[in-house]
């Protein structure tokens, strides 16, 4: 199976937003010297009155965005995820979520997009941090299609939302007529042996691993869990009922993210299924390109296939 390379998700985010904002002057983008990395230069050139620059000040970025949203503006607060969700976490928690100002908080260059730049520039904590904050939904699109759908859905979403995009070109995974709904996982592939539950840019390696495993007679279900909040609990339970093992995959610390969300559902639901969380371990993260870091931690077709085979052996020792 050949996957076709699309654009970086944050390019699609910016293009979709520009398209929408040209018809709605109430849509505002707020940036913290981040319009370049957010691919928002065309937006600023086309709609200068709809782009608000606050300089390198993430706390202020979020607070100002919350104030604008409280006055009825449809606000997208855009900044690298690594800074936005640490430095401005209190503003996200209080000014956006707690005060219920429906800002769309947009973390760009997320995960290990800036892999070579070191831990200052990695966001491997944002799922964990924001999952614990009441009243903010979390979306992590896998490809260009999901990105566009997430932006369209965010436009009419009544609650605060966090959207997370990477900066590398990603494979197209869906056809344009794929149903998309906030909080509803998309089944990319059906199978009975193993389920890969993946989020964001780790969905493509999961799809490629499933393809590889099919070659050795192991059939895999692949779910794109593009929404971490509200969480598609039923899709996880269904995978536990209908397949023999579950592997979660995320561009995030293995602590507090997608994997532990699934583990919680499985444990509390009484499901006993071989289970493995693949992500970035709790260590001094290796540096390099996103692809190199993914390979290093087994977030690759080869690595995930090996994990699946090992997990099935645990289940079937004969």
């Amino acid at each position, binding site marked *: 199976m050949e996957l076709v390379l699309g654009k970086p998700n944050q390019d699609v985010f910016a293009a979709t937003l520009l398209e929408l904002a040209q018809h709605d002057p109430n849509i505002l983008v707020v940036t913290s010297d981040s319009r370049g990395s957010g691919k928002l230069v065309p937006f600023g050139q086309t709609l200068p009155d709809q782009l608000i620059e606050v300089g390198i000040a993430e706390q*202020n970025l979020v607070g100002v965005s919350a*104030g604008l949203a*409280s006055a*009825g*503006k449809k606000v997208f607060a855009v900044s690298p995820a690594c800074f936005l969700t640490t430095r401005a976490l209190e503003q996200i928690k*209080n*000014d956006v979520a707690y005060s219920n*100002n429906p800002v769309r908080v947009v973390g760009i260059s997320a995960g290990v997009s800036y892999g070579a730049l070191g831990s200052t520039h990695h966001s491997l904590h944002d799922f964990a941090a924001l999952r614990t904050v009441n009243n903010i939904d979390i979306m992590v699109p896998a490809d260009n299609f999901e990105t566009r759908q997430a932006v369209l859905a965010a436009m009419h979403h009544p609650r605060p939302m966090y959207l997370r995009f990477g900066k590398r070109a990603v494979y197209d995974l869906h056809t344009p007529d794929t149903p998309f709904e906030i909080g509803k996982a998309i089944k990319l592939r059906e199978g009975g042996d193993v389920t890969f539950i993946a989020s964001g840019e780790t969905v493509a390696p999961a799809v490629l691993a499933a393809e590889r495993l099919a070659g050795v007679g192991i059939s895999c279900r692949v779910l794109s869990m593009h929404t971490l909040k509200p969480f598609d609990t039923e899709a996880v339970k269904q995978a536990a009922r209908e397949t023999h093992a579950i592997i979660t995959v995320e561009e995030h610390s293995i602590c507090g993210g997608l994997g532990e969300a699934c583990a919680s559902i499985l444990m509390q639901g009484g499901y006993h299924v071989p289970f493995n969380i693949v992500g970035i371990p709790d260590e001094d993260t290796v540096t390099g390109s996103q692809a190199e870091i993914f390979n290093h931690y087994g977030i690759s077709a080869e690595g995930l296939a090996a994990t699946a085979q090992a997990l099935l052996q645990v289940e079937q020792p004969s």
Partner: protein
Amino acid sequence: MDVQTLQLKSVAYRKTILEIIKQSGAGHTAGSLSCVDILNVLYNHVMNVSPENFTDPNRDRYIQSKGHSVEALYTVLADKGFYSREALATLNKYQSKFIGHPTRKVYGIEQNTGALGHGLSLAVGTALAAKKDGRSYRVYTLLGDGELAEGSSWEASMTAAHYQLDNLVVIIDRNTLQITGRTEEVNGLEPLEDKFTAFGYAVRHVDGNDITALIDAFGQVPFVPNKPNLILAHTVKGKGISFMEDTAKWHHRVPSDEEFAKAIEELNLAEVKLKAAV
């Protein structure tokens, strides 16, 4: 509303603040007493906001960044008719909406605050929205002086000046005390006027416990076209109660029965004097 009426309201507000804190067994006593005259003038003389127009997009906005002095805000909003004075009996009680910091669950409150250093960015965003929409409302925000150590306030100040938000009015409750002691001993703030001027504000000083002076100061807004307004309101923490005035220990102390009785007695006396003057 005339000055004497407002002065009498301030005395009544101080009584209510002490009563609800005493009844609740918790509260930020001295900070509420220091800023209540400012709130009195804002809500009863300056701002176009009432229970009737609170959902009107053209209403003036007040965002209390020093959220811990919520007892003053709850008291003034009750008097404005947003809810009854009796409702405040549930302050800090189990499942009460009247919690120890401003919350939008209470009708009349614009933003949830309580963590310091947040109100100014919220106010900047709200004022910027007015400019974008061509609306004439103003946005008032009250900051504590101790709060100014939070760097986010200065980030927001840069943006206020950059976007020339002359519809923004920042009031500093400059009572010179924070929970640990004097602001100048904890982490010096001065020269505040120079700092705010350098950050692009048009700055005015006012006696923040003087109704007439406050009316005059707010009446001059905008101080300078295209500049955000900043009022350094020189106040006395614990104002109005002799033994609470200008002492750090009353930051969040609840008066004993004896102290409470003495405080109410002082306020009754102040009321008598004001009425006699009329």
